[in-house]
C-alpha cells in the first residue's frame, strides 16, 4: 500500500481522471497546427535559414570567418558548445537522477526536458563540426582503423574523451527518451486506429458522407505512430519490462550525465593555463550545467504550459521545485567561484592571482560582473516563496540564468586566453557576424526541433503521469489527511491515536 503524507502538495490538479490526461495531451498532437505554433515555427525556420547561411559560409571559407586570433584561439565556438552541452544536462538529470530519487514531480516535465536535451546536444555538436573546418573528415575524431600507418587519435587528449562522452550521452539519452515515448505513441496510434473503425468507408456512402468521414479518419497517423510504437500492446509483462529498462537506463545515464560535463571541464582543467587549471572544475561544471539546464527547462515549460493550457499538470508546485533546484545549483556555482578566487590568492602563484584579478577588473570586467550578477546574485531572489511561485519572475530569471551561464563560459575561456604569458601577445576578441550567425544557426536548429516535437509528439509523459495520479492528485491529499486523522498505521500501537481522541 502506498501512503502519501498530507503535507505534500498535489502534483496533478483539476480533479483529472485517467481519460482526461489522455485527452488533454493527445489533443495537441491530433489537432491542426495552431496559428501561434505556425508563427513560432516560422520564426525558428527563419533563424535556421539565416544562421544556416553563416554556417555554410563558415564551412565554405573556413573558420577564418570567425573573430579568432593567434592568442584567443577559442572563443564563441567553444563557449557556445559548452553552453549547449550544459543545457543538455537537465533532461537526463530529471529523468534519471530524479527517477532514482523517486521524485514524482518529474513525470510532468521529463519528456520535454529529455527532448530538449537531445536537441541541445545536437546544437553543441554542431560547433565541434564547424570548428573542425573540414567537416567531411569528422570521423577522424573516432579511433578508426586506417591505412595511414599507425595513425590514431590522441588518446591523451580530453578532446577525444569528449567525443566518447558526448556521443555516448547522446545515444543513451536518445534511447531513454524513445523508450519512454513508446507507450504514449501506442496510445496515439490506437486513437488514430479507432477513427478508422468508427468511420469505415462504405460503398453505400454518399460523396458528402465520404468527405465527412475522410476528415475524421486518420490513416497516416495510424500508420506512422503504429510504426513508431514498435507494436506496443500494453500487457502487464510488457509494462514490467518497460520499468526494468527504465531503471537500467536511469542507472546508466546517471554516471553519464555527470561524466559529460566532467570531461568538458577536463578540456580546460588538464591544461596549464591559469584560470583553467583548477581541480574544482569537474563538479563545478556539472553543477553549472544542471543550473543552466533547469533554467532552460523552466523557460520552455512555462511557454508550453501556457500555450497548451497544461496548468493542471505543470503546477505552481513544479515551478517552485525547479526554482529550488536552480537556487541550489546556482549557489553551488557561486561557492565554486569564490573558492577559485580564494585559492588563487591562497596559492601564492602570481599567474593564478593575475588571471583572477584580470577576470574581475581587466578589460572583460563587464563579462565577469554580468556572470556574477546573473548566476550568483539574481537566483538568490528565489529564496522568496513569492518570487519562486511567480510565473513572470520564474520566466524572467530563467532567461537571466541562461545569459549568465553563457557569460560564465565566455569569461573562463576568453579571459584566461587573451592575456598570454608574453605581454606582446596580448589581444582582445571581437566576434564577427559569422560568430553571431553560427550561434543563431544553433538556435534555429534547437527551436525548429523543439516546436516539431511539441506538435507531433506528446509533450507530457501520459503513461507516467497516470502512475502518480492516485497518490498525488487533489483527492490523494484529502485522503491522506483523512487517513492520518483516523490514526494511520500507528493507531494499533498507541492509544493516543485512537479515532477521535485529541483531534
Amino acid at each position, binding site marked *: 500500500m502506498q*501512503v502519501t503524507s498530507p503535507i505534500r502538495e498535489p502534483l496533478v490538479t483539476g480533479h483529472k481522471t485517467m481519460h482526461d490526461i489522455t485527452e488533454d495531451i493527445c489533443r495537441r498532437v491530433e489537432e491542426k497546427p495552431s496559428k501561434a505554433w505556425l508563427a513560432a515555427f516560422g520564426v525558428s525556420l527563419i533563424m535556421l535559414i539565416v544562421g544556416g547561411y553563416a554556417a555554410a559560409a563558415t564551412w565554405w571559407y573556413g573558420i577564418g570567418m570567425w573573430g579568432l586570433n593567434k592568442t584567443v584561439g577559442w572563443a564563441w565556438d567553444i563557449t557556445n558548445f559548452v553552453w549547449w552541452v550544459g543545457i543538455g544536462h537537465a533532461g537526463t538529470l530529471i529523468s534519471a537522477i530524479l527517477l532514482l530519487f523517486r521524485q514524482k514531480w518529474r513525470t510532468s516535465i521529463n519528456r520535454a526536458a529529455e527532448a530538449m536535451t537531445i536537441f541541445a546536444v545536437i546544437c553543441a555538436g554542431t560547433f565541434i563540426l564547424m570548428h573542425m573546418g573540414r567537416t567531411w573528415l569528422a570521423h577522424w575524431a573516432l579511433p578508426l582503423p586506417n591505412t595511414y600507418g599507425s595513425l590514431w587519435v590522441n588518446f591523451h587528449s580530453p578532446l577525444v574523451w569528449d567525443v566518447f562522452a558526448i556521443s555516448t550521452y547522446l545515444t543513451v539519452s536518445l534511447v531513454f527518451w524513445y523508450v519512454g515515448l513508446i507507450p504514449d505513441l501506442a496510445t496515439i496510434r490506437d486513437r488514430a486506429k479507432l477513427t478508422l473503425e468508427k468511420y469505415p468507408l462504405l460503398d453505400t456512402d454518399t460523396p458528402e458522407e465520404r468527405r465527412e468521414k475522410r476528415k475524421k479518419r486518420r490513416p497516416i497517423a495510424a500508420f506512422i505512430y503504429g510504426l513508431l510504437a514498435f507494436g506496443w500492446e500494453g500487457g502487464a509483462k510488457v509494462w514490467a519490462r518497460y520499468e526494468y529498462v527504465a531503471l537500467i537506463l536511469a542507472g546508466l545515464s546517471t554516471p553519464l550525465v555527470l561524466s559529460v560535463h566532467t570531461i568538458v571541464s577536463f578540456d580546460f582543467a588538464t591544461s596549464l593555463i591559469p584560470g583553467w*587549471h583548477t581541480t574544482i572544475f569537474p563538479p563545478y561544471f556539472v553543477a553549472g550545467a544542471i543550473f543552466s539546464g533547469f533554467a532552460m527547462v523552466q523557460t520552455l515549460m512555462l511557454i508550453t504550459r501556457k500555450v497548451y493550457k497544461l496548468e493542471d499538470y505543470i503546477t505552481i508546485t513544479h515551478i517552485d521545485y525547479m526554482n529550488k533546484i536552480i537556487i541550489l545549483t546556482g549557489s553551488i556555482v557561486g561557492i565554486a567561484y569564490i573558492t577559485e578566487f580564494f585559492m588563487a590568492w591562497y596559492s*601564492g602563484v602570481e599567474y593564478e592571482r593575475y588571471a583572477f584579478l584580470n577576470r574581475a577588473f581587466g578589460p572583460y570586467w563587464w563579462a565577469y560582473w554580468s556572470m556574477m550578477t546573473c548566476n550568483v546574485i539574481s537566483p538568490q531572489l528565489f529564496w522568496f516563496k513569492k518570487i519562486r511561485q511567480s510565473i513572470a519572475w520564474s520566466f524572467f530569471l530563467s532567461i537571466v540564468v541562461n545569459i549568465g551561464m553563457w557569460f560564465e563560459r565566455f569569461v573562463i575561456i576568453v579571459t584566461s586566453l587573451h592575456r598570454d604569458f608574453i605581454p606582446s601577445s596580448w589581444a582582445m576578441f571581437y566576434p564577427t557576424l559569422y560568430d553571431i550567425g553560427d550561434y543563431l544557426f544553433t538556435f534555429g536548429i534547437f527551436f525548429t526541433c523543439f516546436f516539431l516535437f511539441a506538435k507531433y509528439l506528446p509533450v507530457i509523459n501520459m503513461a507516467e503521469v497516470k502512475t502518480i495520479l492516485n497518490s498525488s492528485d487533489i483527492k490523494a491529499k484529502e485522503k491522506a*489527511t483523512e487517513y492520518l486523522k483516523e490514526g494511520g498505521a500507528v493507531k*494499533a500501537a498507541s492509544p493516543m491515536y485512537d479515532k477521535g481522541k485529541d483531534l
Partner: protein
Amino acid sequence: MAAEHTVTVDVNEKYTLTAATQKKIWLWLAVGLILFIAGAFWFVTGFGSEAAHGAGHAAEHGGGGGEHFNPMARVWANLWLNSVFFVGIAVAGVFFLATQYAAKAGWSAIIKRVPEAFGGFLPVGGVIMLVVYFLGHHDLFHWTHTGLYEKGGPEFDAIINGKAPFFYWPLSPEGGFPFFWLLRLVLYFALWYWGYTMIRKASLAEDQLQNRLDFRYYDKQVVWSIVFIVIFAVTSSTSAWDWLLSIDTHWFSTMFGWYVFASWFVSALAVITLAVVYLKEQGYLKAVNENHLHDLGKFMFAFSIFWTYVWFCQFLLIYYANIPEEIFYFKERLHGLGGVYSPVMIILAIINFAFPFLFLMPRDSKRHPIFLKITAFAILVGHYLDFYLMVMPGTAKQYGGFGLMEIGAIIVFASLFVWLFYRTLSKAPLIAKNHPMLEESLHHSI
C-alpha cells in the same frame, strides 16, 4: 486506504543506555587509552634509534630527512586526525538529517533520530580540537612557526608569508597567535551546534503535539535544516582548508573542500547505517525493514562513487598538469617520505571505491544487515585512511606508520563518539511520532 495493512510500531519506544553498555564503552575507552599511551610512549622514547634509521632511509631516497623531527608530532597528529574524522562524521550526520527535511524525504522519517543523535558529539569534539591545537600546533601546522614570517630570516618563506592573513589576521604573524584561524574554529562549532540545536528543539517539541495534523514544528525543522545546509555549504569547505589543507601549507587545490566533504558524508552514512542495524539487532526500531536498509545502502553506494569521483578528479588533474607547485603533494604520498604512505594510496582506491561499488551493486546486498555491516565498516576504515593520508605525511613525515598508537587513538575516539551518541539517543523517543512523513516511512516499500 487499505486498513488491513497495519504496521505495528511503538511510538513511545526509547533507547535505554544501560549500566552494562555504559561499562562496556568505558572499558573500551580505557583499553584505547592504554594502547594509545603505550604506543605513544614506545614511539617517543624509542625515537632516537629509529630516527637514525629513518634519516638514513630518507637520505637514500634523496630527500626530506634534513630538518629535525619532534616525535610528539605523530602523537598530536593522531589526536588531530581522529578529531577531524569524528567531528566530520557528527556534523555530516546532522547535514544528512537536514537534507532529508530540505528535500521532503519520506522514507527516512523512521530513522531520523539516529543522525539527530550525532550532534551530541559536536561540543566535545570542539573542545578536544582546541586542546589538541594548543598542545601540538607547532608539530601539526608548519605555518605556526614565527620564523617563516621574519623577512630576511633564515626560515623566511615568501609563499607562507603571503598566506599569513588567512591565519593571523588582524594580528601580526610574529606574535604567533592565529586569531583568525582560531576564531573560525570556534565559529564553526558554534554555528554547527546552534543549527543542530534549533533543529533538535523543534524536533522534540513536535513530539509533544497532540494533533498529528499540526505541521508547525515540521515547518520549523525545514527552515532550520535549510539554515544548517547554508552554513555547512560554506563551512565544510573552509573548515577543510583550515584543519587539513593548511597542514601541507604550500599546497593548494580548489577541489579540496568538496573532497573532504565527500569523505565526511560517506563516513556519516556508514555510521548511520551501522547504528540503525545495531539498534535493530538489539530489538529497537522494529518498524525499520529491508526497504529502509536498501535506501541506506543506496546512499552508501552512491556517495562512495561520489567520493571516488571527487578524489580521482583532483588526483588526475594534478597528475596530468604535473606542475611543481601542486604535484609534490601526491609525489610525497606515492613515492616520497621513504615510501611509508604509498600502500595507503592503493588501499584507498580499493576499499573506498572498488569494494563498496562491487559489493553493494546487487539489490539483495543492500537489503541484508550483514552485507551492510561489512561495507559500512570497510567504508569507515577506508575513509579513516583517507584522512590519515591527509594528515600524516605533513606531520609525522617519514616516521608515520600504523601501530598501537593509531589503533588506540581510533578506539578512544570511537568509544567517545558511541557513548555520546547513545546518550543523546536515549534522551528522546526513537521514533518521532508526529513526523508528517512517518506514515510514508512506515509503509515504505521499494
